[in-house]
């Protein structure tokens, strides 16, 4: 029996980078002054604060996930990190979860308090230990929940990872990329710090382009219109980098004769509270959306194509905000299903002749409820739809989930783990990989580039827009 090296991969030895935090402190940002955005304090007793927070914030589902693991190791079979690095036992989800579980046991569990060595219970010694924990929970897990669904005991390792991220975020022990997006969301209400002026200008520009491109007169992208059928909330990426998505949606809504609006405030449905584990940020961002819907008296909230945005706005946001859901909240894919069912738009699948496969976003398929709906749409708008294996609830992460696209320090490890996704994509023989998540678009594009795959990433709105038959007139 050879001795196994249990050294973490180099990417997980990243030091704590605090230059952005120092700038935020120097600028005396409102979110810092009000204590919403937490900064790292090297003089503080961070271990003590961490333990206090752990004791205060833990809830019953988390306590059960801490207590129930039997260390069977079966989770290694489902994790793309563990599968891509079979000789690295530190990639096993149970090992990653054990890094916080051992603290829980030392702090809360009887056996761990009395004979800690017997159950490997241990307190973190210093900030360096907390930084190592940061690297594991932010850098070696995309919180895809694949291990959760494959755990015979029902241990929700992804929830433990998010919980740990939340504790570390409270101490400012957080990757710089995540900190920056948290800061922007706190400060501007959207994760890409898009100003109101840029937002409105881009919308106007998208509308003009759409009119000239399609020749359809009277297309509107309304903002802050009251009493609409729905409020449409988007990913800031659609304003900053990829306005095609908003343009496709506007075109489809117009042809379907929809009465819709974007809000001027509360338009960002993405939510870094999910990734950073900061429930207060999660509540703040989600509440912006809910308040916009209430203020504009919208009949429902429709969420653009975004995995974590959907999960945050449809599911977690109401819980974080402590608000009972009163307004129907749905993905735009459900809206598309409705249009197709009601014949409000006509599509011709021959307009998308290339072989298309579908990538399920983890936050939608494993933490949400949509598996069949996107396929139902794709079978209508694509001539050659083919499944990748595994798919649906068992699909592998795009590898960019959990905020990993904002953390360049972990990129090498992420792309190594992406081997599993690359093999999965290649086996389909498809030319297009469709996903209903902007984050997955970037994650998959990175995988495709790194592994030199002959594939292009598209989204459902894009394929539906392309498939619109010439006989469409505004309903």
């Amino acid at each position, binding site marked *: 029996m050879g001795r*196994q090296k249990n050294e973490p991969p180099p990417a997980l030895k990243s030091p704590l980078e605090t230059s952005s935090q120092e700038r935020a402190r120097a600028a005396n940002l409102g979110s810092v002054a009000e204590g919403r955005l937490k900064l790292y304090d090297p003089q503080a007793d961070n271990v003590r604060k961490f333990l206090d927070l752990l004791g205060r914030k*833990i*809830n*019953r*589902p988390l*306590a*059960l996930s801490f*207590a*129930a693991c*039997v*260390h*069977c*190791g*079966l*989770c*290694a*079979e*489902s994790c793309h990190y*563990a599968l891509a690095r079979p000789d690295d*036992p*530190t990639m*096993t989800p149970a*090992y990653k979860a*054990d890094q916080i579980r051992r603290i829980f046991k030392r702090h809360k569990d*009887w*056996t761990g308090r009395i004979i800690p060595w*017997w*159950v*490997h219970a241990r307190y973190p010694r210093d900030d360096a230990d907390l930084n190592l924990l940061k690297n594991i929970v932010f850098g070696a897990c995309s919180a895809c929940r694949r291990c*959760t*669904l*494959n755990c*015979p*005991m*029902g241990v*929700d390792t992804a929830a433990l990872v998010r919980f740990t991220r939340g504790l570390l975020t409270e101490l400012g022990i957080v990757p710089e990329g995540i900190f920056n997006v948290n800061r922007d969301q706190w400060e501007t209400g959207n994760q890409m710090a898009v100003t109101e002026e840029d937002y409105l200008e881009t919308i106007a520009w998208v509308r003009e382009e759409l009119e000239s491109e399609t020749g359809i007169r009277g297309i509107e992208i309304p903002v802050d219109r009251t009493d609409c059928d729905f409020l449409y909330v988007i990913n800031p990426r659609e304003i900053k980098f990829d306005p095609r998505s908003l343009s496709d949606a506007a075109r489809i809504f117009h042809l379907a004769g929809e009465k819709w609006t974007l809000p001027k405030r509360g338009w960002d449905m993405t939510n870094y509270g999910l990734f950073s584990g900061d429930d207060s940020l999660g509540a703040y961002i989600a509440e912006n959306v809910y308040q916009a819907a209430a203020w504009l008296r919208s009949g429902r909230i429709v969420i653009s194509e975004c995995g974590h945005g959907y999960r945050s706005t*449809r*599911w977690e946001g*109401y*819980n974080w905000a*402590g*608000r009972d*859901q009163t307004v*129907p*909240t749905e993905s735009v894919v459900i809206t598309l*299903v409705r249009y197709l*069912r009601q014949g409000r738009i006509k599509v011709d699948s021959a307009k998308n002749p290339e072989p298309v496969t579908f990538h399920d976003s983890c936050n939608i398929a*494993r*933490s*949400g*409820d949509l*598996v*069949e*709906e996107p*396929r*139902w749409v794709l079978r209508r708008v694509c001539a050659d739809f083919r499944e990748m294996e*595994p*798919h*649906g*609830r068992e699909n592998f992460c795009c590898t960019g989930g959990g905020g990993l696209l904002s953390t360049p320090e972990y990129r090498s490890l992420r792309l190594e783990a992406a081997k599993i996704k690359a093999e999965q994509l290649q086996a389909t023989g498809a030319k297009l990989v469709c996903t209903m998540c902007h984050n997955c678009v970037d994650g998959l594009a990175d995988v495709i580039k790194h592994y030199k795959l002959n594939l292009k990433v598209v989204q459902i709105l894009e394929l539906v827009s392309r498939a619109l038959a010439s006989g469409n007139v505004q309903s």
Partner: protein
Amino acid sequence: MSPFLRVLENEVQIVALLFLASVYVFRILWILRFEPTRERTRPAGSKREGIAYSLLSISMPWSMEALRKKPGFYVQFLIFHLGVTAAIAATFIIPYRPELFRTKAVVLLFQIIIGAAFVVGLMRLRRRLRNPAVRLISTPDDYFSLILMILYFAAAVLAVPNRFPTAEWTLVLFFGLTAFFLVYVPFSKISHYLYYPFARYVLGKTLGHRGVFPIKEAKEETAFGPPEK
């Protein structure tokens, strides 16, 4: 039967069992002390179905990809836990229904089940020692609990013939280990079966509400299309 064995089979077991039960009550109270969560969203599925699916998932190995990939692991799980059940049953049969073990076929059946569990226990110990990922996450409690189980199975195989006139030591060993187990279990990983229903219930409730459980295949299209949302 010696007075020592009689006391060991009866009073000692009852005291140990009461101890286990009272510690379990504290364990459950400990779990309940943690704040429950409340779902404020409108459902996309059924909590009840999700809970039922989650609790029964252990009887549906096809529902988990990891078990589909490793069917042998599931077979081992079944044999091991059948062995546990048989061994526990023997602790009640020997003192309270000894006539059952006068039938040779019954004894043989118990010995086969528990013997198979003993072999699985050894296989699991080997895996825990040899598989680097499992070895890394294993604690002294994991090893001790497993070794204890293996010894317990061995003792149970020897004890079920219930030959106290000729081999009383096998019964003393078996009931001695049982008493130790009853006291040790609540503090060890073996108490996972106490957490199991709670953990699966909580997961099933959340994922059932969201329509994730029961897990559905992404089906070939039906005439009815996707479910109405």
